[in-house]
């Protein structure tokens, strides 16, 4: 065996280990930039941007395509997120349709209340949804119309998700 071979092998092993460590560090730092992991920071636009990404993720969970989502937990978080979005949008120059998001959430809550046999909460949430839609110029401002929109949204989401069936309520 050539005398330099063990030295070359040692350097190669070192490069391999170094490369692996570097790759792992890059992976971890990339996770920090993920909109789902990073807490929203920066200017008001960036905070709206990041919270919008999170809202999409919560809506995906609320669609419950696989029937495994903890819906009350998801909807509670979505409510907090919409509030944060309102705060971030203030001063960003943007006017995202957050009343529509809140109305959609209210109808999801009403559907959940119906399942939990809580007619009082169900009618409260439906009324809240309707009020929001009325103030946002809907041609048919009703909880049932928003319910149809939700069915379409969930169908779209679940159709996109591999190995899924119809949305589970």
């Amino acid at each position, binding site marked *: 065996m050539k005398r330099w071979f063990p*030295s070359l092998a040692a350097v190669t092993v070192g490069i391999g280990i170094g490369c692996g460590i570097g790759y792992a560090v890059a992976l971890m730092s990339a996770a920090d930039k993920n909109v*789902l992991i990073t807490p929203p920071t920066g200017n008001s636009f960036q905070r709206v941007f990041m919270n919008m990404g999170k809202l999409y993720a919560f809506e995906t969970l609320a669609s419950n395509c696989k029937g495994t989502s903890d819906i009350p937990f998801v909807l509670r978080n979505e409510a907090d997120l919409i509030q944060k979005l309102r705060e971030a949008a203030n001063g960003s120059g943007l006017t995202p349709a957050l009343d529509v998001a809140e109305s959609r959430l209210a109808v999801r809550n009403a559907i959940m209340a119906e399942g939990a046999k809580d007619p009082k909460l169900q009618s409260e949430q439906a009324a809240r949804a309707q009020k929001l839609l009325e103030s946002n110029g809907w041609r048919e401002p009703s909880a049932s119309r928003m319910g149809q929109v939700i069915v379409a949204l969930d169908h779209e989401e679940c159709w996109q998700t591999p190995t899924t069936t119809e949305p589970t309520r």
Partner: protein
Amino acid sequence: MLANTYDDGTDPMRRAIRYLLLTIAGMILGLPLGLGLGHRAFDEGNELFSDVLALSEYETLAGIQYKESDVPHARQALLDLLKFMDGMKANNRLGLQKSMSTDRGIAFMRLALLEEKAGNTSESREYVRKAQEAMKNRDGSVMSEDGLHELVTKYDNTPTYKLPSIFLLSRKM
């Protein structure tokens, strides 16, 4: 003494230290290489993923408003969506700019149709021009007003709230 040396006469301890130092030198060389490869592999994908999520939700909410509300609210939702897309560019979120051209074109054409419906002909013409400009940014080809009209009418009849580019990108995720 002879027992502690290899055939070539070197001290095994010194050889071990030499290989260790060479391995560390290799690691120092490999670290930036791994970092560079990793950043190239993950950063772009991660940014694109975040862009698709955020724009998907923004387009969905604006799309719901466009399809369900009266002209003033639909107009406001579309203008705000375009502002959000501009904000993404201003905030260096450039990964989706080309894909966004189609969505931007459709949003402008929807505004043109709304203004036409409201009897604002000059605004409508201006939005048609902007829609054509946006579509041109996509592949350099100029789309006729009739072609755009047909595209938007056809798309508006689908049950989808997202615009086509983001819809397709979100399906791939």
